[in-house]
């Protein structure tokens, strides 16, 4: 990909234009990188036909299944091209905390934590879905909550 960088002191607003003739790995990566500056995440549906720009705040949780990452909204699921660690680094500050090995949960969409009879902890989401808070990530999760409440 050819990259041109222009320094124009009289420009009213900085902008980036991406010109491409076909969507390949490179363009997907560049689009993904640029969309992070707008705070948006490009998502595709399961059939990879429809595209949607996702607002991090509307995502309930992120899950990795068979090396594919999915963003779960209140009533839809979108495939995103982020790894869990990469997503955490870019959007962790928005309110995403690790709740198990393959998931990140948006703490702003948690309704409550529920104790189970077998001493497991379930996270009840705003839409009523329940996901497991793994014991190995429990302390890290509680610390994240405390950090967030101290910041706000």
């Amino acid at each position, binding site marked *: 990909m050819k990259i041109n960088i222009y320094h124009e002191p009289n420009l009213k607003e900085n902008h980036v234009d991406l010109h491409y003739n076909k969507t390949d790995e490179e363009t997907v990566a560049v689009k993904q990188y640029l969309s992070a500056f707008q705070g948006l995440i490009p998502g595709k549906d399961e059939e990879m036909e429809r595209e949607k720009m996702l607002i991090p705040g509307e995502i309930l949780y992120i899950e990795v299944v068979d090396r594919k990452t999915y963003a779960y909204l209140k009533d839809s699921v979108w495939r995103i091209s982020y790894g869990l660690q990469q997503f955490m680094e870019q959007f962790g500050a928005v309110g995403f905390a690790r709740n198990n090995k393959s998931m990140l949960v948006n703490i702003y969409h948690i309704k409550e934590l529920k104790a189970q009879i*077998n001493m497991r902890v379930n996270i009840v989401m705003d839409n009523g879905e329940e996901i497991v808070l*793994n014991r190995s990530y429990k302390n890290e999760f509680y610390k994240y909550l405390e950090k967030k409440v101290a910041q706000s």
Partner: protein
Amino acid sequence: MKMIKEYLLSVCVVYTILALGKVLIEGIGGMQDPYYVMNFGILFVITCYAAFILFMHRIFHKVPLLFVMIGQYVLVIGGVMAGIFIMSKFMEVSPAAYRDMFIQITLPYIVFAGIYYISYFREIKKANEIIKAIKEIS
């Protein structure tokens, strides 16, 4: 490496507490242990074994904690009872050894399990209060 360090630290702390407890109880009660040296040795072996079993819970993090705790208790008590049984084949063992060891293991286990159980619910309660506060602020 971190896990080994934590394990060794736990063994040191627990053994010190148990040894001090034994000395204090004997001192206050005016008792004399005729097998002083051997009992301290056994106490150390049991501490190492029990700490090892308790540390295994990290491996079984997908198994419900209640089952892990029950399984660990069965392994600890079973191992100690088997140890006493093997020892009894080579030396004289007090007739009350099985009962005493059962009490000495079961009581602290129940106390610590109870403390853990209470802290488990307190943590959830606290986390729910934080979640509520975060939602109210945002």
